[in-house]
């Protein structure tokens, strides 16, 4: 979580004592998984770098007209999904990514900023946010890459035949839609993904 403390972004909201972190993870079933940061958001458009004023004026008016003020306010606060659609489509808030497996231990990660139809005034901001998050000089990728690299090294360890993804097993709940929900730091999403992967990739 070091990255969250070191750049100013919406992720700032999840820094601190674990009990004060409101973000959750959800296992939707069939390998589809989600991180929902929005319970930790305090203001609107935190997912858009706290955009306000003229930058969102036209969008706010159009969505309020279309969806009514109540639904619109929820959309402005929650923002787009942070979710993995099984097996390899990642909706990364304002980015879309595809993971293309190449061989064992090798994949290509394609990504693009998501531009809103009819809101060209956001394009510049979204492009810069995508570069800062995932670009060749980004702030987000360095830590993710190092974590992924260490996980990969850990998988090669021969001291234990077990790979335990047990974090949070004791505190998961099932919501009204049948989704498994837990604290954002729990491995609920890892379990959801790999359970389904095993089911579709094995003959048993």
């Amino acid at each position, binding site marked *: 979580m*070091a*990255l969250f*403390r*070191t*750049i*100013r972004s919406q992720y700032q909201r999840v820094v601190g004592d674990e009990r004060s972190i409101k973000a959750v993870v959800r296992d939707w079933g069939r390998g589809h998984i989600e991180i929902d940061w929005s319970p930790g958001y305090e203001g609107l458009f935190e997912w858009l770098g706290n955009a306000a004023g003229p930058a969102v004026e036209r969008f706010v008016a159009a969505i309020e007209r279309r969806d009514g003020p109540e639904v619109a306010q929820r959309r402005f606060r929650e923002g787009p999904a942070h979710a993995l659609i099984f097996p390899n489509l990642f909706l990364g808030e304002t980015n879309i990514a595809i993971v293309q497996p190449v061989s064992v231990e090798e994949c290509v990660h394609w990504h693009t900023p998501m531009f809103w139809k009819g809101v060209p005034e956001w*394009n*510049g901001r979204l*492009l*810069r946010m995508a*570069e*800062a998050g995932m*670009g*060749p*000089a*980004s*702030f987000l*990728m*360095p*830590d993710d*890459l*190092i974590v992924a690299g260490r996980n990969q090294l850990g998988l090669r360890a021969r001291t234990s035949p077990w790979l335990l993804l047990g974090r949070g097993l004791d505190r998961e709940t099932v919501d009204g839609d049948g989704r498994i929900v837990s604290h954002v730091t729990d491995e609920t999403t890892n379990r959801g993904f790999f359970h389904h992967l095993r089911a579709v990739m094995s003959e048993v």
Partner: protein
Amino acid sequence: MVSEADHRAVADFLYREARLADEARYAEWLALWTDDGVYWMPPEPSYTTWDGTPAIFAEDKNLMRVRMGRVLHPDAWSQRPLWGTNHVVSNVIIEKEGPNGDVIARSRFHMMELRRDDVRHFAGSYMHQLKKTAEGYRIKLQRVDMTNAQAAYDYVLQIWV
């Protein structure tokens, strides 16, 4: 005709900028920018603007501060040990000098970067739009065209080139 003194002053400014970066004196380095200054590294030389086009860097002062804060933050463990860099700046030419003393300068650079045991080399050209102020030159725009910008790297860039 550009005077020798102005040429000297611009070259000294570029050397000082490189020195501050190499000594990781990023706050002083950042103070060399005007308030509306932009640091821009296009993907390749044909780009004429960062506005609405992809870039490797396209940072205003605010984003530069964020990058500096992240790199220097004690919890940014992916950034430890801190990057070592060594810039060699050369071939300084003043392309244009306005009546108010503002200049457009071009130069070439070679930067060696050290991260743990890995050394990388980046080289290319700078274009500086410099504003003449009472405190000396300030950078309004620094464009960096990296000759090897399109190469594949194992790790992303974290420090300004």
